């Protein structure tokens, strides 16, 4: 059942009224079901965090709709920020700035209950304590954020996000700033909370490996546009879009032999080095090894593949049988 539905979303950042502005999010549509995790993957400037902020009502939407439980919640310029009463929450990237250093953990958690108004002080205290226990940090409500490590602070941030019983949590790179040994703890916690509370996650990350593990479906973005979307495992195993392939080949894995193989695969596919990018064409054309004239002139539409994925590439059918995807399959078999 669809919880959140984004349709043809556009976010344009403008320095002033006279300048043209930067199209941070360009015609993006996807849906999140109840209890589902959708991963947004892309590099810096891909618009993935902006989409999260647009859903949360922290960035005004230029056009398109954001429907939450059937209601349009998009914040448009000149309009009052719609109040969601905490139904969508945020877990941000940097644990050192996610919590106000001047407030105790208990105060930070309890304040999220204020907008609901019907919760008394003692009840708020009780719910704070039990929520902190849920994330494995009982009895710390009177401490300040500085007394916790990065991983612990991220758990407190998760606890804060869950206080108001949200349906959807936007996780903006929640484990990127954490050490590997702590990253797994936090991912396990997110997964456990999802199954016990029936939460939906929008999981924003640059790390394909993490998104493949945590997300049911993923949306791959480049320069504000959707390149490919579909089931995470399918995309990770056999990416259809040349950009997804490049991203996968470039993300390093802890295995020297696999790295050497990926390096060779990378060096065999250098960009064709076409000239000027036109706004009408594919945004990846100048970095793509398979660019043809059509890529520069015509924006590739999202096409549906046989296994129900969406791909925005003129040549995806022609490239489908290429080496890259085969190799990944082989490699998984070896492991």
């Amino acid at each position, binding site marked *: 059942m669809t919880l959140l539905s984004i349709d043809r979303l556009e976010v344009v950042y403008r320095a002033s009224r006279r300048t043209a502005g930067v199209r941070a999010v360009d015609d993006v549509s996807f849906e999140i079901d109840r209890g589902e995790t959708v991963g947004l993957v892309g590099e*810096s400037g891909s618009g993935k965090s902006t989409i999260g902020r647009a859903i949360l009502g922290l960035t005004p939407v230029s056009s398109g709709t954001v429907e939450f439980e059937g209601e349009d919640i998009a914040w448009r310029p000149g309009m009052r920020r719609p109040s969601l009463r905490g139904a*969508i929450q945020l877990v941000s990237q940097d644990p050192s700035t*996610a919590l106000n250093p001047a407030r105790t953990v208990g105060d930070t958690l309890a304040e999220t209950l204020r907008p609901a108004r019907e919760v008394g002080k003692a009840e708020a205290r009780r719910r704070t304590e039990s929520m902190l226990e849920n994330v494995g940090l009982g009895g710390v409500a009177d401490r300040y954020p500085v007394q916790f490590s990065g991983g612990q602070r991220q758990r407190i941030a998760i606890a804060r996000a869950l206080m108001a019983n949200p349906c959807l949590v936007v996780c903006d790179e929640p484990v990127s700033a954490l050490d590997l040994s*702590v990253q797994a*703890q936090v991912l396990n916690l997110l997964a456990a909370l999802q199954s016990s509370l029936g939460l939906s996650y929008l999981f924003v990350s640059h790390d394909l490996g993490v998104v493949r593990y945590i997300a049911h479906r993923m949306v791959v973005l480049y320069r504000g546009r959707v390149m490919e979307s579909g089931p995470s495992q399918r995309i990770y195993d056999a990416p259809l879009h040349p950009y997804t392939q490049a991203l996968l080949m470039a993300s390093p894995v*802890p295995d020297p032999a696999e790295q050497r193989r990926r390096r060779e695969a990378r060096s065999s596919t250098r960009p064709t080095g076409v000239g000027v990018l036109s706004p009408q064409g594919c945004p990846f054309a100048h970095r793509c090894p398979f660019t043809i004239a059509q890529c520069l002139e015509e924006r590739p539409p999202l096409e549906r593949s046989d296994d129900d994925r969406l791909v925005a590439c003129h040549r995806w059918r022609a490239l489908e049988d290429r080496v890259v995807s085969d190799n990944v399959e082989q490699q998984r078999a070896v*492991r």
Partner: protein
Amino acid sequence: MSAAEAIQSPVQWHSTFGRRLLKRPLAVSCLAFLVVVGLVGVIAPIALPGIETQHAGNLLQVNQAPSWDHLLGTDQLGRDVLQRLLVGTRVTIVGVLEAVVVLVGIGVPVGLAAGYLGGSFDRVAMWVVDLAFSIPGIIIVILVLSLYPENMPAAMVTLGVLLAPLIVRVTRSATLQIRDAPYIDAARVSGLSGAFIVSRHVLPRVSGAVIVQVSFLAAVALGAQAGLAFLNLLVPAPAPSWGGMVQDGTNVLLIHPWLIWPPGMAIALTMLAFSLLGDVARDVSTELWSPSSTPKKRGRRSAPKRFAAVPQVETSSLLSVQGLCISFDSQAGPVLAVDDVSIDINAGEVVGVVGESGCGKSLTLAAILGLLPGNGQITGGRIDFEGRDLVHLSERELRGIRGKQIALIAQDAMSGLDPCLRIGVQLEELIRRHTGNGRRLARRRAVELLAEVHLANPEQVARSYAHQLSGGMAQRVAIARALAGEPSLLLADEPTTALDVTIQAEILDLLRELSSTRGMAVLLVSHDWGVIADVCERVFVMYSGEVVEHAAAMPIYRSPLHPYTKALLLADPRDSDRGQALNSIGGTVPHPGEWPVGCRFQARCGIAVSRCAESKVRLTNLPDGRSTRCLRVEEMQA
């Protein structure tokens, strides 16, 4: 948090601003002085009635020097100076209070609103502020006094309004810094009102800056009040005020110079107390988020070497670090951050040092160049590089090695570039320093270097400024700069951590290529096991200030011999599917100073036994050239 930060982090977060302020002797004496002045202002006019309306004292005793009858002497009308000074305190303090209440009452709310709301309110507010700065304040106050003669509240309120823009500015800029902090976003997302967010989240964070500015402006208001009283514009004739008393003194300056001293000192000391209190308040309010408010000089070179020289081991390595110990001074005494670390690298080799934040890997790198942060000191070991022990070199000798023989590239390449100089100029400067070449030769070489790091259009990059480059380009420029001195060893501290993966892959390719074409050794520090796997031939794994494992790259990934290495590799989400729990490592990395006796990983280790906690675990060298700091190495090998 790096190891250095972990040690120097502030300790007293839970005590309030006021309590921390009272721990400073200077603040206590300033506060005590101001409290006394305030009490005098309240009590003196009540205790000494009639002084305010006294036109003249004993006219037989005018202009007397201090005596037992008149502790501060008498003035030209025979009135007791001490009494007048005490009674005059009230007018002075009330005047300052009027101005301060008005400037805080206007300045703080407007500043908060302008910073938090932004938009048109901010534009209008800042326009008014700029306008106010261009108005000569004291003239306006005198104008007001000409309309309302000797009306102090009118004058001081006007002064407060005219000084408020200074508070607006400070409050606004402090608010702007935290307006977009993630915790403010989170509070907004929870549906909390703007008023709540400003009062509970923003105000406490900006209060430090505001207090400093208010104390400074209080001193300014005091000066202005005294000045206006000196001009006889504020207080009607017989009533005493500090400024008025200074005026009395100047009238008889030649025959009785003593008379200006008591009020003059009262004004000077009170202004000083306000300013000093502001200074201390600033220190106290920033000590929370700045590691050490009084940065010490880099101590490494000047301090005596307190440790016995470590015997040199015969080595064919280019760089050989043996038994390196680094410690930091803290309030609780020296804290060890790097403990007995030995690392070696051969010419032309690419070696990785991998570990989590706080494990001491970056400190080890900094120690090689003699660039330890804060009060970090090398307290043991040696660093042999081309036959010399770098630990015992002078700063001058080290400068000859830095950049020329050992170069460094860091994580944040952009901040390493001067934003005001063209890239080419910055490179030329270095090339000329290292090679002694002329300007023209250096310019050509600069472009060559930029081409060597595969920047697509080297001439154009040389003409650019740092802000015109992307993150990946900036890191290439940083590498070109490192190459300028033709170093035999390149230290790379998390060189790709801030970059996108596709750019990261290109930079790693470049490092590998440069190492093989130039025979340059690369010591790469990273927390990312994938990056290390991509370029390194050998790997040192660090945990809690120690090397816990060392081996060639392939075996360390295929069959790790330390439980920490093994657990980390197993925690990789790529190896698990959704629905399966990841193999996480419980607990947290212990901070320096909190290391347990024995193995430092014991609390998080799945195979720890009682002897792991007994004594320091030594690095075991295995016959195949590997080494591990684990007592249960047989079990690990099995």
